[in-house]
Every structure is written in C-alpha cells, then in structure tokens.
C-alpha cells in the first residue's frame, strides 16, 4: 500500500478535533498526595454560574450600541457604515441610545429587565493588538504588565486551593470551569495550572455523550490509537461526570441552527441543568475583526457585522429562554467581552480598524437591568486616530461580578483582581451584600469640566467628589493615559479645582476622566496652538 492511500484511509474526513482534553490531568494527583486541604475559609458555597461569551476580533461597539443623541456626529464619522437612524432598535425608558437592528433578542432581554448594557468598557492605555489585548482582558492586567494567569483562574484558585491535588472531591466532583468550543483560554489559567477543562467542539461533546468513538483507520496504527483513546477517556473522571450530566437532560428548548455560539450555549445550558457544580463556562464566537465591508453598502443594517450580531443575539436569547424553561434562570449570569472595540471613524474599505473601549453586555434574570454609562462623545469632525475613551474599566465589571454574584469578600477581591476597582451595581444575588446605586449614578450633571476649553497651555479642571477614593486621569485620543492628575482619598464630599499644565501636549483631543466610587465621567478637552 502506498503512503497516499494509507493517508486517505487514516485521516478523518470531518474536521473534528480529537477528543475531549483535560486542562490538566487530575487522576494521577488524587491517588498520590495525602496532603489535606487548608481550611476553606474563603470558600463560598453557591449554585450561581457565570457564562462568559468571548467575541473574538474586536466588536465594533459604536454600531452595536448606537447614540441616538448625537446621531449626527456619529453619522458624520462613519457615513459608509452608519446604521440608519430609523433602524435603530429602541430600549424602553431610554431615549439617547439604541441597539443595532440585528439585536432583537437583546432588545427583548433589555425590555424584560434581564440585561445591563455597559457603555465604553476599556482600560487605560489600551493595546491594539489582538493577542496582547485578548491576554489583557483575560488576565485582567494593566496594559503595561504581563500576567500569565487569568482572572477567573485566580478566582477559582482562591475557591479551590491546591487544585488539581485531591480533585475531584466529594464537595467538588466536577470541572471547576468548562470551556466549550475552544481548546484553552488564559482566562481560566490559575497561578500554577489551568483550572479549566475544554470540550473542544460540540461534535466532540455529542460523541462523548453518545459514546461514539472517533474513527480510526483499520490498520495497526489505528488499532493502537483506538486503545490509547479508550484509556484516555476512562482516565478522565470529569468526562464521565459530563456525560452523566448531559444524559440527565433529555430535552431542551429550541436554538437557532447554523449558529456555533448557539450550539455552544445549548451545551452549557444542558450541563448546568444536568447538575454539574461547575461555576464558570466559557464560549466563544469569532469573526469580529471587521476591517473591511462590515456592512452591505446599500443597506448598512445588513452585512457581516449584522450577521455576527444576529447570531450572538439569537443565541443568547435562545439560551435565556432555555434557561427559563429548564428552571435554571436564577442561577445564570452571562457576560460578553471583546478584546477591543473599533475606531470611531470608519475606513474607506467600508470597515473599521482596531479601537479601544466598547460596550459590554450582562444578561440574566437577576441582572440589574439598565443602561450603564453615557454615549461616547463623538466630535463633529473625527480624525482617523480617535478612539472611544473608556468610561468603565473592564476590571470593575469583573470585580463587580465577583463581588455581587459570587459574593467574593473585599480583601479577596483585591487579591484576585490585583488592585482595587470601583464597584458597579450590576447584578442581584441576595446572598451577597448588594451595592446600592449612587443617587447620581446615571446623572446628567457634569461632574468634571475644564476651563478654558479649548486651551493653549494650562487649564483648570474642576471636579465634584462624594468623598472617598477619587481618581482624575488625562488621556489622549488613542486612549493612552497621559497623566494621573489626582488620586486621593477625600474625607468629605466637595468640589475641587486643580490646574493642569498641558502646554507640552501636542494639539488635539484629550479626555479627562473622573472616577469616584461608582461614579465616573469622561469629558473631552481640546488643546490648540
């Protein structure tokens, strides 16, 4: 037999990634080490689950959550891709902001009070590289610091110290985190080992459940490979738990076909309902790197980006409906993220280039429904390099979720998140201390401004603080932090003015960002010659 014929017989026709891969083999540890786990003081028993939806490529936030107020400047900045004003989906009780027409599912969830839309989520000095930005979002590091573990990994490491030694345990017989549809993720990388387990794709999952073996060629190599796979499967205790959980759920709701995100979320719903004690699931959906033709020129509400958003919206809606039907909606909180948003100004190819801050969606029955934050300020004449400045640090979102959903206490929170981040009222878990929204949380009042504006050399920045931790930063239009003007604990509420000498700055758009507790506000400034 010649090699070509041999290869034809050997290689599977389908693109199924072989098998279910464990994040870290666990069986070998459990038998050997008699070490008893330390007291589990930080441990919080909970049946709450977080579903993280990664949108890979950098989602164009401005066409996702669209300013109705200030629509003119929006249109002007991206004429060739702007969504027609009449097509924007309206949100109950919201006049200034709306959604891309594809997001009907999101609109419905919002109107039912089951979604919080957080505007302009980003971080200081954003990175525009997919790889680095993804790593930043997953590790929750500062932009200039490299951290080789993930925020979820650190949380799980806190809850399940010593993993994988002595796991699976009676208390936690299941994977700590499950990633569907991707091989691995920095998000679940703990300080020492990966805390998560991968189900590489839905086909592998269903093969596992239905006891279908990956095909092997009918020759000695195939025979040995089959044996190795069998042992690998027997060895993986989690595989059997997943199988049992899946088999405990005979029927589910309807999910849209030809939608890989829906396929992944369907598995997640099944495993949650099936009784796994896994707290974190990650799913991912790619294609958002829309540098060109993100819309159909003659009908900008359609096209590549519209299809992507449609898939996300319909998948998430189906998931939420299924969760309700299965009776698990009390347990589920979902969160989208993307490694960055996209440029305010569209390019000539009918697309957008890498940007910085963008909206993030939280969904779930117990989400505090609402729109968090304000429309990004868009100048009348936007230059090609300008980016949406962040209003909320994504790590605040993470911290809030950990605190309000998983009831992580403050001292642990700082350790997991590496720093203190402002807490935002995002979700209700009555078991955790709830964070009351500040009375002026979504206020229209100006909390920070500068005079004179425009300025040529120095300008006075006035800001209001309620007291407590107060941060005033200056950022340039690309989102890079230029100066920390003030970072201080004020004992009392008050208004303060500080002089900022910006004479050395190149002319252009700058932003002053105020952060004070749950409050933040960003205000544009213009430096001129």
């Amino acid at each position, binding site marked *: 037999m010649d090699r070509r014929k041999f290869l034809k017989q050997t290689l599977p026709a389908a693109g199924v990634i072989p098998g279910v891969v464990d994040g870290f*083999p666990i069986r*070998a540890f459990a038998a050997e080490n008699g070490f008893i786990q330390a007291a589990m003081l930080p441990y919080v028993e909970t049946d709450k689950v977080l579903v993280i939806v990664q949108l890979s490529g950098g989602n164009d936030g401005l066409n996702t959550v669209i300013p109705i107020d200030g629509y003119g400047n929006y249109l002007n900045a991206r004429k060739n891709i702007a969504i027609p004003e009449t097509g924007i989906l309206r949100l109950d009780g919201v006049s200034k902001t709306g959604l891309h027409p594809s997001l009907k599912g999101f609109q419905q969830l919002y109107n039912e009070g089951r979604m919080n839309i957080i505007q302009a989520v980003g971080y200081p000095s954003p990175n525009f590289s997919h790889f680095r930005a993804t*790593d930043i979002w997953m590790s929750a590091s500062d932009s200039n610091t490299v951290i080789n573990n993930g925020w979820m990994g650190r949380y799980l490491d806190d809850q399940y110290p010593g993993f994988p030694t002595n796991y699976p345990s009676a208390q936690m017989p299941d994977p700590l985190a499950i990633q569907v549809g991707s091989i691995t993720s920095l998000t679940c990388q703990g300080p020492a080992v990966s805390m998560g387990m991968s189900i590489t794709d839905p086909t592998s999952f269903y093969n596992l459940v239905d006891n279908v073996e990956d095909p092997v060629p*009918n020759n000695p*190599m195939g025979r040995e490979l089959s044996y190795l796979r069998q042992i*690998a499967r027997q*060895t993986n205790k989690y595989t059997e738990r997943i199988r049992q959980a899946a088999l405990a759920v005979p029927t589910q709701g309807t999910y849209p076909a030809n939608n890989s995100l829906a396929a992944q979320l369907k598995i997640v719903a099944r495993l949650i309902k099936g009784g796994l004690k896994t707290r974190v699931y990650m799913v991912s959906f790619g294609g958002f790197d829309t540098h060109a033709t993100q819309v159909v020129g003659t009908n900008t509400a359609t096209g590549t980006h519209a299809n992507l958003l449609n898939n996300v919206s319909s998948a998430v809606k189906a998931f939420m409906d299924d969760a309700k039907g299965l009776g698990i909606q009390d347990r589920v909180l979902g969160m989208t993220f993307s490694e960055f948003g996209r440029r305010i100004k569209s390019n000539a190819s009918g697309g957008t280039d890498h940007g910085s801050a963008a909206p993030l969606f939280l969904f779930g029955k117990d989400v505090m429904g609402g729109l968090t934050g304000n429309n990004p300020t868009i100048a009348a004449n936007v230059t090609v390099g300008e980016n949406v400045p962040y209003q909320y640090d994504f790590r605040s979102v993470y911290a809030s979720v950990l605190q309000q959903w998983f009831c992580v206490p403050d001292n642990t929170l700082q350790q997991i998140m590496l720093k203190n981040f402002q807490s935002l009222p995002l979700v209700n878990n009555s078991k955790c201390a709830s964070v009351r929204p500040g009375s002026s949380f979504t206020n229209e009042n100006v909390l920070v401004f500068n005079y004179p504006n425009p300025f040529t050399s120095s300008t006075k920045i006035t800001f209001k603080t309620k007291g407590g931790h107060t941060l005033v930063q200056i950022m340039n239009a690309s989102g890079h932090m230029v100066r920390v003007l003030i970072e201080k604990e004020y004992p009392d509420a008050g208004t303060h003015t500080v002089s900022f000498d910006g004479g050395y700055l190149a002319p252009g758009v700058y932003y002053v960002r105020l952060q004070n507790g749950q409050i933040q506000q960003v205000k544009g400034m213009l430096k001129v010659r």
Partner: protein
Amino acid sequence: MDRRSFLSLQPEAKKPALHAARTNTGLSKYTGAWTANEVQHLLKRTLFGSTKADIDMFTSLGLAASVNQLINYTSPLPAPPLNDYNSATITDPAVAPGATWVNNPTNDGTINGQRRSSFKKWWAGIMINQESNIREKMTLFWANLFGTESNEIANAHWVYNHHTLLRQNAVGNYRQLIKQVTIDPGMLRYLNGYINASTAPDENYARELQELFTLGKGPTVQYSEADVRAAAKVLTGWRINASFVSYFDPARHDTTPKQFSSYYGSKIITGKTGAAGAGETDELIDMIFLKDEVSKYICRRLYIWFVYYKIDAAAEQNVIEPLAKIFRDNGYEMKPVLRALFESQHFFDVLNQGCFIKSPVDNVISCLREFGVVFPTSYTNQYIMWNYIRNWYASMTQDVGDPPDVSGWPAYYQEPQFHEIWINSDTLPKRNRFTDTMITSGYSSSGQKIVIDAVAFIKKLNNPADPNKLIDEILQVIYRVPMSAATKQSIKQQILLSNQAEDHYWTDAWNIYIQNPSTANFNIVNNRLKILLQYFMNLPEYQLS
C-alpha cells in the same frame, strides 16, 4: 533467584478486530521515497527521539548511509558514573565526591545502594545525551533480554561492569556476548551461577540461557528438562573471588559427561578436570548455537523491539526466516541483521509505521531530546536532574536497571497486549503530567531549571512565522501519526491565532518578537506555543512511534 511469575495487566479495553492481514513485504531492499517521513520512522525506532537537525541530516544521507550511520559508529564508551551521593550521613570511604566509584568495589550495602542509584541516574544521562546511533536502544534491548536486576545483583561494581559489557557488545557478535555474559560476575550473581556447584547444581542460569537468552519457548523448541540439568552441570564451578572478579574453580566443577537430548543431536560434552573444565561452558554455548532456532529467536526479539509486537505467518516467513539466515551466515554478527532489517521494504511498510506505543523511557527521553531541553553542566546538578527524569519513567512502570524479573518488561512478551501494557489509567495520566510539567513550569532545583523552551525549539524550524508550516514542522518532529488538514486548521486558529481568522496575526506576532525580543513580545508568542505543544503532547497520537 527464583523465577517470578509474569505480570499480566488486563485493563478491560475493547479493541477493534484486526481485519486486514498485516503485510507480505519482506527483506527486499526498500527503494521507495526517502523523505522526512521515512527518516522519522527509522529514527524514532532506533533513537530516543530525533531533533530537526537529525531529520535534516539523515534525509540528506539517504537510506543506506543513514543505516550505516546508525550501526557503524565508533563512539567511545561514556565516562563512568560518579559519586554524587556523599552527604552529611554518608561518606564513601574510597571515592571522593565527583570521582568515579567503578574502580573501587565494596561490600558495604549502604554504599552499594547509593551507587546503584548513581548508576541509574547516570544511565538516564547517557540516553539523554546519546549520539545519533543505535547504541543506546541496543544497550537497552540487551538489558531487557537478559533481564538483569541491579537490586538483585546488589554490588554496583558488577552492575556497572555487566551493563558496560552490554554497551560494548551492543552491535557486536551475539554468540561472543553470550559467552561473556555467562561468566560475567553480574550475571553469575543474578542467576545464581556463582553458587552453582557440582554437589547440587543450580539450574537457574542453565534454564534461562536456553529459554530466554538463546532459544526461547515454542512448538519447535524441544530442549528437555534433562537438557537443563545437563547444562547446569556444565556450568558448575564458576565463582566470584574476593576481588570481585569471576574465576573458574575446578574443585566445584562436575566432571561427569553431560548427555544432551536428541534435540541437541544427543551430544555428549565430556567432563574435564582441572582448568580445562572451564572450556565446557563454551562447548555448551557452541552446541546451542548450532540450532537454527537461536537465530530465529533473536531475530524475533529484535522484530518486537524495533518493528511491531505481532509476528504473523507472513512476517515469520518473509522476514524472520531470511533474517535468521543472515544472522547464521554471518556467524551471529549483529550488524548484518540490523542492516538487512532497517533497509528492508518490510520495515518501511506503511502498515508498520506509527503503530508502536512508546515505552516509558522512550516517551520521557524522546521528549527531552526532541525539544532540546538544556541540562546543567555541573555534575551535582546533572545527577539531580537525571534522577528526576529516571523517577518519571520508573513511575510509569519502567525502572530502567530493574525490570520486574529476568523475563524483562512484559510489554515485549506478554500476550495478547504487549506494548499496550505500558498504558493504563495510572500510567497514561503520568505521561501527560510529565509533558505538561516540562512545557509549563519545568523542574527547578538548586537554582537550575530544566524546561522545554518552546520559542528556542521553533526557532530551529524552517518556517516559524507561517502558522500552517509551523504546525506541520512541529508535527514532523514529534508525531508519527498524520493529522487531517481540517484538524490542523482548527488547532491553528484556536491556539496560534487566538480565534482570529487570519494567518498574519501569528506571522506578525512572531516577526515583531524577532525584531524586538522584549518580554511582552516574547510572552505573546511563548504563551501560544506552549499551549500548542502541550495540546499536541496530550493527544493520544503523541504516544505512538
């Protein structure tokens, strides 16, 4: 030492029935394609892992020159093991730390125990640093065939000398090797030869000599119990003196005639008195080697070691028989047999490729060598690292230097599973855990670390910037099992491209790192490469050779 019963691990695995016959190819010279694929098939069977540089070199040599390179080596013997064991509680009275202990035999049990450990660590180091020839795989082949256990031999001096005998004669003359092993102190100690006296002959070695070392057991092998007893008598008189050297004591030798069965042509070895009695041993061995079965037995053992565990009727007729004839025609020289086997169509038959489950030592050492893991240079740190390594394959049930018994490791003889015995629900996770450890944190001790340097590894490949070629090149080094294009595409996208759709994201990241190897740029590529390599090593495909 008494014979112990064989292990028989029987995990409940269902195997697909082997419908297709294996193959009818034989010893005709292989004249097909000579590409990296064929090279890797040859190297993965004959070496403990091969690097990219090896692949390139052997590809350029062609088949005949490659086989020549593998078996016609002139490398000197390695420097002997050292005293790495002096401590607060143990002091070797005769050997300074860092000096070799092989010339200072002792009866001290504690020191011997330390030296045996030193020997095993040193052996790991030899395999890690092996040159690109077949010597180390053949040394291990003989160690498995003779099944000598260092714990049983106990005296490290004999352990080392016996081992050196095997390495010196790795590709030499087999009949000569048998003659030397028979009177080697290590073997005399191991199978009781040194107390085999005429007053009450000990049949241990006499039996194993025939059953395990020369003729085997089977329907055509008809030596009798009487032959075993007669052989035992021939072998009486060999002893070990106080200087740890073997010698012949005529006073303990049985001088009666030794009658052998019709299987041996009813031969009588006349008993000889005095020093001439020693010559009966060679007569015995020469008598055994008159049987064609000896050549077939050894060729079958070589086949199982290098090709596959299943020898069906076609392989027996087309491969074993002609190989055995070459063996006999060449007076039991190993090289002609090895050359004929490795240049044959049968060896390169596609059905014989990728079907070999790597032994634990192969799995561990190959990983280190393929990825070019750098070891420390000072001996104390080396022995610490080698100790870490040898404990790994020992935990996977291959304690090199101490096989379970004189039959060697069951993977090479135990029906019906053979090499599948290496893989069970305890050992497979250990293999994964080893490769996971080596690709993530590595092992650190005394300020030194051994770890797989993923970036350094792929820098040696031709096209690290192209994610498709990168994956292909990596798999060429570490895999023998093909992977479908669709699967490689998915893996590339999910790991190298972080779910992006376009290849250039990896290319850009790699080129940016090359131009500016800052920590941040390094981490971007290194993190993805480590995940990629870890993933590949965790797939069952990685276990096949």
